């Protein structure tokens, strides 16, 4: 049943996704990643450029769960989990291709640990979706993308202001590198779990139907 619904939903969902936001964020990310092509930068600086590109991507992705027609789609038989999963599934291939392109553009010499950077980028996106999911679950907002983007920006700037020994944006070659990346893994797992938990529809208590 849900397979049928999913197939029926994919095309209209794909049309309603915020592709222009994603494209704009992706273009900015690629522009940031292309900076090392025009200037001779240290690997440590390129790392931060790619992190900012990942942040741009996550800001664009934060809008994916925005559904201006929320009030009308709430009553359709397709569950919220299915609708949200479909939205993400539709953009995921594009995001993955964008991220690979970004790594190739920004770090053609493979001087940076791509796996760790990818983990950070995925965790940022998952955090964005977890926060958007929570906003949709617990508030009446139809479009939490902007607020989620603001929180992501604040978290990123705050992390950048923390001294190198404590920041999640750990500098390249720092002794905390692997430790901090296990925290990123934990953030990813927690975000996915909390997102999954908030995709459940709030089920209203069933009252017995009034007897005529």
């Amino acid at each position, binding site marked *: 049943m849900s397979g049928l619904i999913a197939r029926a939903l994919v095309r209209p969902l794909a049309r309603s996704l915020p592709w222009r936001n994603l494209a*704009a964020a992706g273009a*900015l990310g690629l522009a940031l990643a292309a900076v090392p092509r025009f200037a001779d930068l240290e690997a440590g600086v390129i790392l931060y*450029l790619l992190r*900012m590109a990942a942040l741009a991507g996550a800001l*664009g992705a934060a*809008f994916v769960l925005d559904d201006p027609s929320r009030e009308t789609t709430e009553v359709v038989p397709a569950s919220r989990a299915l609708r949200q999963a479909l939205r993400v599934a539709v953009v995921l291939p594009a995001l993955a291709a964008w991220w690979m392109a970004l790594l190739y553009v920004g770090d053609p010499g493979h001087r940076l640990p791509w796996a760790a950077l990818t983990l950070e980028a995925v965790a940022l996106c998952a955090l964005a979706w977890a926060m958007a999911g929570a906003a949709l679950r617990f508030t009446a907002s139809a479009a939490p993308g*902007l607020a989620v983007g603001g929180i992501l*920006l*604040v978290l990123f*700037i705050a992390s950048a202001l923390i001294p190198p020994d404590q920041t999640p944006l750990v500098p390249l070659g720092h002794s905390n590198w692997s430790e901090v990346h296990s925290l990123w893994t934990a953030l990813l797992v927690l975000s996915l779990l909390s997102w999954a938990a908030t995709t459940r529809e709030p089920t209203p208590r069933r009252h017995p139907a009034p007897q005529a």
Partner: protein
Amino acid sequence: MSTLETERPTRTPLPRSVTDRSVLALARAEARRLLLHPLVAVAVLGHLAVVLWPGGATGQDFPVLQEVARETQLGPLLVGLATLLAVNGAVLRSRRHGTDAHFDVLVLPAWRRTIAHALSITPVVLIAALLVAGQFAREAVRPGAAGHVPIAELVTGPLLVALLGSLGVVLARLIRSVLAAPMAAIVIIAITFVIPVDSGPLRWLVPLVADEGARPLPADLIGRPAAWHALYLAALAVLAVLAAVLAGGARTPAITATAAAALATTVAAAVLQAQGPSDALAAARDRATNDPSSMQVCEDAGPTTYCAFPEFEPWLAEWRKVAEGVRALTPVQRKITVRQRVHAADGPSSLRDLPPAPRGEVTVGTAWDGTRRLEFAGSVARGLVLDDESDRGVKCDARGIVTMWLAISGIPDGEARYAEARTHITGGGGSILAPVNPIVLRDREYAAVKALLKKPKPEVTRTLKASWPELTSPKTTTDRAATLLGIPVPPETPTDRNWNCT
């Protein structure tokens, strides 16, 4: 076929006083919402926390005011980024909620509402100005503060808030997407903190130019075009607001002319701030680097003379305490000049080493705190023992032991200061990063110093004074020094032999 014709309703112009009052009323309402916006509130409270932090933002007892003034710009930049996002969201609110069309029937046309949004930034700018003033005043009232008050650097912070807020308004008028503001914030962060823009003329186009990590310079030698940069920021902010008003549909000749004037001012300020240092400044920097005595004030105190750049005069007493503390442990009566030196040739970002002082002089830098006290004590001790700052070699004899013991014992909390400074230095042996060349010892001589520090200071001082000529002679070996001072010394190891002794 029939054509449906609608008649455009004509606006009846309202009296000027009514529209002005409406603009101000809207500006007040929006200002209140802006201040209560979570991002702005978080940024302002964060900045306030930095200003009120116990011990101050820098935690220094001897701040250099021209440096402190530059450090007041980061907080406002973050408040400005929050304002950019918040005011952008405010201008786009009617679009998000689908109420744009309703506004068309109200008394205020779009361009007047734009002016109201631009005016709503004012309270945030004023709060940022208060915070900057508070942060600076807190450092400036410290008894140990030195340096000048650069007004242009201080107004830069509030102007950053004004510029970024105006940018939020114009972005909302030009790009009707809520994503534009976060993307602009990312670009601003990237060009300010991540992408290194070298010392070319483009450098000053970035809103905040930090010049971090360098040693302080006397105010006259810094050569940052701070005043032109402040004008550039202000003109750019005005230009952004006027561009937003023009985009809101107000093509009146007065506004177009003002926008053109703002554009001209922005370009002029951008050009003027990009000019390199003038010939006079380059000459002054060269003189300060190579012949500082011609620019300094001096104070004679017994056998020691203290010379500083005029704005660092409050520190003379501090230097005197250290220099007299070290000299009191020795029998030396020779005249010594303590001279403050800078490497000013490249402006405030220079990381180059200071040039060594001639014989008879010892160098003191332009920063002062607990660690610097120890480093200066090292400088004085070397002056008393070797009288040669240009000597970069490792002293593997009595002179090395005596120099380092004098430095550490010459200040009250020398051993604690040394332990603290030591954590930032890698490699074996012992070292004190004196202002010019570091004082470096091998493990063997460093072990002797540690043994010597364990003995009572008066006893060591007596022995030192009694055997001064022999203990400061290049011919006296470490073993002989250990015998004279009555301390054990470990045998020379192969590692010790790898050092370059002179």
